[in-house]
């Protein structure tokens, strides 16, 4: 209730966002979309994902702050929502870092070359015959 503390009798609590603000947020979002698409045609190597994610996050922040009224919402609601990202980060970081550590051991499990493909699947006996000569 930061922005409209005096909700008399709990009846006056609406907080309409002015139209010009809505429109300017929209145009900012469109502009950012154009920028992302445009930058995709330059090759900036591994920085690419960072740039893309930063732009997406700015867009997300705009949507959250204004379209979702977060800038005017109760702090508790904001904390609730934003904390979900902390848990997502937790999940991603642990799982990814573990995959990275272990991936040399398993990846790729099945090499996808023509002859091996056939040999790897025992049920495809008829096709296996064609690859037998190579196998022996």
């Amino acid at each position, binding site marked *: 209730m930061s922005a409209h503390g005096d*909700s008399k*009798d*709990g*009846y*006056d*609590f*609406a*907080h*309409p*966002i*002015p*139209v010009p603000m*809505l*429109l300017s947020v*929209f145009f900012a*979002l*469109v502009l950012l*979309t154009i920028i*992302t*698409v445009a930058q*995709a045609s330059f090759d900036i190597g591994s920085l*690419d994902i960072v740039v*893309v994610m930063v*732009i*997406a996050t700015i867009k*997300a922040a705009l*949507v959250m702050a204004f*379209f*979702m*009224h977060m800038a005017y*919402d*109760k702090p508790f*609601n904001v904390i*609730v*929502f934003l904390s*979900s990202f902390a848990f*997502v980060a937790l*999940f*991603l970081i642990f799982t*990814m870092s573990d*995959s990275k550590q272990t*991936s040399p051991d398993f*990846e790729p499990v*099945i*090499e*996808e*070359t*023509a*002859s*091996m493909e*056939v*040999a*790897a*699947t*025992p*049920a*495809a006996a008829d*096709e296996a015959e064609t690859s037998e000569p*190579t*196998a022996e």
Partner: protein
Amino acid sequence: MSTIEAAAENAHDAHGHDHDHPSFLAHHFDTPEQQFDSGKLGIWLFLVTEILFFSGMFCAYAIFRMLRPDVFEGCSQFLNTKLGAINTGVLLFSSLTMAWAVRCSQVKQDRGLVGMLAATLSCAMIFLGVKAIEYSHKWEMGLLPAGLYFYDPANPHPESHTNYLFMICLPFMILLGGVVAWLVVSFATKNKFHQQCAMPLTVAAACFFVGIGLGMVLESGDSERATDDHPTHVTESIEQSETMQLISTGENQVLESLATDSNTGIKSELTARQTQLETAGSAIIQEGDEIAGAIISVEENVMTQRKAGVFFSIYYCMTGVHAIHILVGIGFLVWLLVRAVRKDFNPQYFGPVDYVGLYWHLVDLIWIYLFPLLYLIR
């Protein structure tokens, strides 16, 4: 400013006669604000669950992109950036109209509310229309989840026996037919309320086909340049394609027989070991000199069932679940629209519009990330 005053005025209006419970206030709440705050916290919590729900797929995405960046780069070429960008714009616009709709409900602009909800609905339909073009095109090419994948670089556009686009469109045609019928009936019976509901819904339902048209135009404009030769890096290894074809046809049968053959208990243990042995055995042989060429081409060729297939699995999971959310959102928007026509909302009771709005923005938010992560990989 004036609008805020209007809101205040409205609030006073309501004041006189509802010191008890106004009709929109549930019995277990004391004030409309308490009711609104509860709903709002509830919807925020729900959005938290949505984020964690999607996080599973983002995690899968992150792992596979980390392990196989080349696959993601290669496969991303098959996603049409133009269509993705247009859909992004459409969704952003729908977010604008949705936020505006919330504003309308807060300042008691009933007509504006109906209009904004209708605009949001129409955008949702356009989005789905464009998606239908994207999906059907890929299905025809066989760019499917790993288990169903049959894309063949030598023959990217096989003679298709099923018209996927038609199959997707069919339910929407029926929907459009139904809404039009409703509209006609409402005019025939001169039922004002039904007319007011059916008109915006007809527009929205028709917008699906606007989306289809838009998708087709953009797709065809693109195809001359890209679609037909975008798998350039794949055609380099064209000498492989013959064998590739062999495999991809046999693949599904193999899978099915695998699934049915494997039994529980010792039998499956045996089969598993057998498979393992054979896999291992052949893997060792693969190291042999004869196949050296093949291994190199493996590095080049990412358009295989176990590489591109996984990319498309992730693509379909993410965009598919997102599309399901759009469909659910459409359901909610229709419900809101009917209530808006009924003039249910006022400055003390705009909660449902606000909550659906938050949900809708979240769907938009997820797309904001999906678009660059899937379409814009180089």
